[in-house]
């Protein structure tokens, strides 16, 4: 950029106050038990704070838009990494064999009957297990 943007002091002070406020929010919500949502909220607040710093203190808002694109790309790639990794951990152990959640490709597949029923996390499902054992005796 050829011209240099001069930010008024007022803006800097407002941003600084917002950052302090958001730090307070982070501390405050850590005392509330939201389960796994705690980490999501903490990361969200942190991202907002980092963006404020980048946009105002680092002048990204008034800079060449290509730099903004680079910044957004880094957020996008971070999003891709976290989302797809979570797709793994959220479905870990799910072999797609539980009739309550997934259909096997070939319903007559021989091994299908011999496997114990499990829920999506791989734990055995009690109410069906007795019946299942009887089935196995017939084989």
């Amino acid at each position: 950029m050829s011209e240099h943007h001069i930010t008024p002091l007022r803006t800097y002070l407002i941003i600084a106050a917002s950052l302090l406020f958001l730090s307070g929010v982070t501390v405050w919500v850590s005392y509330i038990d939201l389960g796994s949502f705690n980490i999501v909220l903490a990361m969200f607040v942190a991202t907002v704070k980092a963006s404020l710093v980048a946009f105002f203190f680092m002048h990204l808002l008034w800079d060449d838009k290509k730099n903004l694109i680079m910044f957004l790309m880094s957020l996008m790639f971070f999003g891709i990494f976290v989302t797809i990794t979570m797709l793994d951990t959220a479905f870990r152990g799910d072999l797609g064999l539980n009739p309550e959640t997934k259909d096997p490709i070939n319903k007559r597949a021989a091994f299908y009957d011999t496997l114990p029923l499990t829920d999506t996390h791989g734990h055995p499902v009690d109410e069906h297990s007795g019946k299942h054992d009887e089935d196995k005796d017939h084989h």
Partner: protein
Amino acid sequence: MSENMKQNYLNHPKGIMSWLLTLDHKRIGLMYLVSGILFFFLGGLLALVMRFELAAPGNDIISNEIYNNAYTLHGAIMIFLFIIPAIPGALGNILLPLMVGAKDVAFPRLNLASFYIYSFGALFALYTIINGGVDTGWTFYTPYSTQSSSNVVPMTLGIFIIGFSSILTGLNFIATVHKMRIPGLTWYKLPLFVWALYGTSLVQITATPVLAITMVLLMLERFLGIGIFDPALGGDPVLYQHFFWFYSHPAVYIMILPAFGIISEIIPVHSRKKIWGYKFIAYSTLSIAFIGFLVWGHHMFTSGQSVFSQIVFSFITYFVGIPTGVKIFSWILTMYKGQVSFTPPMFYALAFLFLFTIGGLTGIFLGAVALDIHLHDTYFVVAHFHYVMQGGTIVAFLGGLHHWWPKSFGVMYNQTIANIAALGVFIGFNGTFFPQFLLGLRGMPRRYATYDEQFVELHSYSTFWSGILGISIFIAVMNLFWSFIKRNKVDPGSNPWGGMTLEWTHTSSPPHPHNFEEEPVLQHGPYDYDKVIVQKTYKK
């Protein structure tokens, strides 16, 4: 010859300090080239030791422990110290500013800093070798890498440091492409090697920080016992593989994209025909760079990751085939009805097309979950990635060296010897690695120092041809350096292949210290063989 043309970047200024503190992109590129080739020989030597160990079953030459060290160091040196820095660092540095008509890269001091950071990181790797090696495999998978008593820390620290060099080089190239082009050199008039380096740089600056983070997390767990990857501490070992491959899969494209760029330069010049599908090749570079970020899980099909992720990763993996196919077909169509001359660079480009196609297609096999579960960690995978990395990247790198050798150093090598060496590389390579596909299909696992009797025949073939491959590469590189020692000079104004890009038409060979005596004026596009006649001029 004017007084000005006698002065070039190699002889002006003089003195050792003028090299160590140089800001000239061409000198920095040359320093990368020399260090890269030294590491290439070191890595190659380790490969030959392994191959000769595998010539017969049992521990004939080296023990199991040394074998573990040998394959780890072979992988780590070849990837982190040679392939990743070599093409962008050496050929990219020498050529990028010349191709865009600039006096230097955008940040010359940062460029020198990148080289020293790379050297500093390389020292750690050398320390690792002297201090007894490292035995985890180049992937440093947890939990073993947090427990192994070998030199995991210096090696990963070295890789961490070299990563910064990669990031800074990428940043420098992006700024150069955006800001340093001469007037009139619009995006669609850029040589495709510049597009390739641009795509590579984007991947370098977006992916490499993740590698640095991974290495830091590994050390945090090792030293402070923070549970990240170890289940006993509440971590997740598969998470390490997610982190590692989120960098290392895009890194595959850091390695192969510049090779694509080199091939896109060699084929039109040596076929004297306008490149087919310029925009398609340019955009396929960017799309490969992007898709490369979405497919890392195909390295983890047997890691215990969820079936759902496997299906998603397998599906997306197939998309890589589309832009890659676009490139392969465009290159073939470029040669169609062109005036193909069988010069050494063209031989390497043709070898690349053949070898990379095999490497790419076997990648599609491995992208299919059901097949990969059987082939994972067998020699099929070893053969696949050597076809891509060596048959693709290193063959293209050798082609690029032969193509730009007279330009970069003002000397011409013996073309007959270069052709024979290229043929030796091609045959030796196939002889070494094709049997490994068969070994893999028959169940030979990778990373073992010994094997069952049934594999003897194929392993001994592979070992025999690896010797031929090693000798051929040695001859090819020595032939290049011999021309330099013998000073078999070309005329400073010569254009031996009839290239149309700025480095051929507007600079002397070797280039002037400031690249161009005056700012070049663009007269035609990079491949306008249909509009302009460029003479091949080559005088001693």
